[in-house]
């Protein structure tokens, strides 16, 4: 199977031609499967694309607007194969996306996530500090994208602690003990951008304490929206954290519940990278034509993973731009992008937004 071939590859060594041919083959396979096994998708293809399920170029593959996953329950496998339903965070009053997963899709999401992340953290699992509170996983039937993110990344942790109490107080003594116990080892930190800034950085800064995390690798995601009000830039985020805990390796990522697993990790040069498993196309909002590199537009994401729901090609409500392809100074092949946040008039949304400041 084409996906197995892809899994055996390094996520960032295939340049344009090779990558596109692999991805195209897989996406055509998925389009065909959705068409045969999802009546709503079949109607969409029949009405808007003359029933066509094979395409010659990634640009031509039909995309669904991300909103559709809020409005419809789309599945491409029998109900009894669905074992997990993921929902987007969605603050009060908003409809949430519903993504239906079978075992195969969920397993692939985890495997691809590990392939991508280990390119930045190394292969071994590490002592992990979860920059969140334990209650985020308490309601097991209905945890949000935030909980799912934490669980997904927990795989990289060997021993784990939570940095915050359920009242969002920093467990500074516990963290110190943890760091002492595992001194000399690489420590993995994961959390959501806003919460790290609000409850980790600011707290340490306020109380004037320093945590020795010079050996740490931090991955954070969930978006910058809430930090824009505080006017925190990417650079300030990194330098602030470096100041309070000496950490040098800090990586943002871009991803969404509709395409879990295929995340876009920030490299050492500050660029978000598409892996061999996924891609980004930027579209002009006036006519949906493909924007040339460097031009801003709406972000369309492609993923080779979704089997149980028709989510291999989605037009998001985010604005972004392709900065370049195959030539990032970090050495990783594939497109590298920048994300500017949500489009005007699109609803406010983002994983870490589910925690409202009291």
């Amino acid at each position, binding site marked *: 199977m084409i996906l197995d071939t892809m899994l055996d590859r390094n996520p960032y060594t295939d340049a344009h031609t090779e990558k596109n041919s692999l991805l195209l083959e897989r996406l055509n396979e998925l389009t065909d499967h959705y068409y045969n096994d999802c009546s709503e998708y079949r109607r969409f293809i029949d009405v808007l694309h003359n029933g066509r399920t094979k395409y010659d170029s990634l640009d031509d593959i039909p995309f669904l607007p991300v909103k559709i996953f809020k409005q419809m329950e789309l599945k491409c496998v029998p109900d009894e194969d669905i*074992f*997990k339903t993921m929902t987007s965070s969605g603050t009060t009053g908003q409809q949430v996306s519903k993504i239906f997963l079978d*075992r195969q899709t969920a*397993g692939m999401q*985890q*495997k691809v996530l*590990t392939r991508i992340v*280990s390119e930045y953290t190394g292969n*071994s*699992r590490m002592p992990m500090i979860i920059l969140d509170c334990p209650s985020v*996983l308490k309601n*097991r039937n209905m945890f949000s994208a935030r909980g799912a993110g934490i*669980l997904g990344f*927990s*795989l*990289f942790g*060997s021993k784990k602690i939570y940095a915050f109490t359920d009242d969002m107080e920093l467990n500074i003594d516990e963290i110190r003990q943890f760091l002492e116990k595992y001194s000399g080892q690489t420590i993995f930190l994961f959390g959501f951008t806003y919460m790290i800034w609000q409850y980790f950085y600011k707290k340490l800064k306020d109380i004037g304490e320093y945590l020795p995390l010079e050996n740490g690798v931090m991955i954070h995601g969930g978006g910058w929206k809430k930090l824009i009000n505080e006017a925190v830039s990417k650079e300030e985020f990194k330098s602030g954290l470096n100041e309070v805990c000496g950490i040098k390796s800090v990586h943002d990522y871009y991803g969404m519940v509709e395409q879990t697993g295929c995340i876009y990790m920030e490299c050492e040069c500050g660029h978000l990278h598409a892996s061999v498993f996924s891609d980004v196309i930027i579209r002009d909002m006036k006519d949906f034509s493909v924007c040339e590199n460097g031009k801003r537009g709406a972000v369309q994401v492609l993923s080779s993973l979704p089997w149980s729901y028709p989510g291999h090609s989605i037009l998001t409500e985010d604005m972004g731009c392709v900065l370049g392809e195959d030539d990032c100074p970090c050495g990783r092949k594939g497109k590298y992008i920048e994300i500017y946040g949500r489009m005007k008039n699109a609803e406010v949304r983002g994983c870490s937004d589910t925690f409202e400041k009291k």
Partner: protein
Amino acid sequence: MTNLEKYNQAFIETLEVAKEQLEGLEYQQIANWDSVGHMTLIAAIEDAFDIMMDTDDIIDLSSYEKGKEILSANYDIEF
């Protein structure tokens, strides 16, 4: 304790199941063996045998039997 007893105990304690339920037990078959329960189970297995499992093995451990297979094939644990 034998390896089998240690292995069983990890399941019984973290997933709150009876010994009789173990055979044929699969991931997501019972409420306690969900993705949260899975990570707790893995931690218990790792502690019991003093090992650190690879990420792919953690993902592939999808049933009581499969776990035994993985432990004997990749971690030299005999049952």
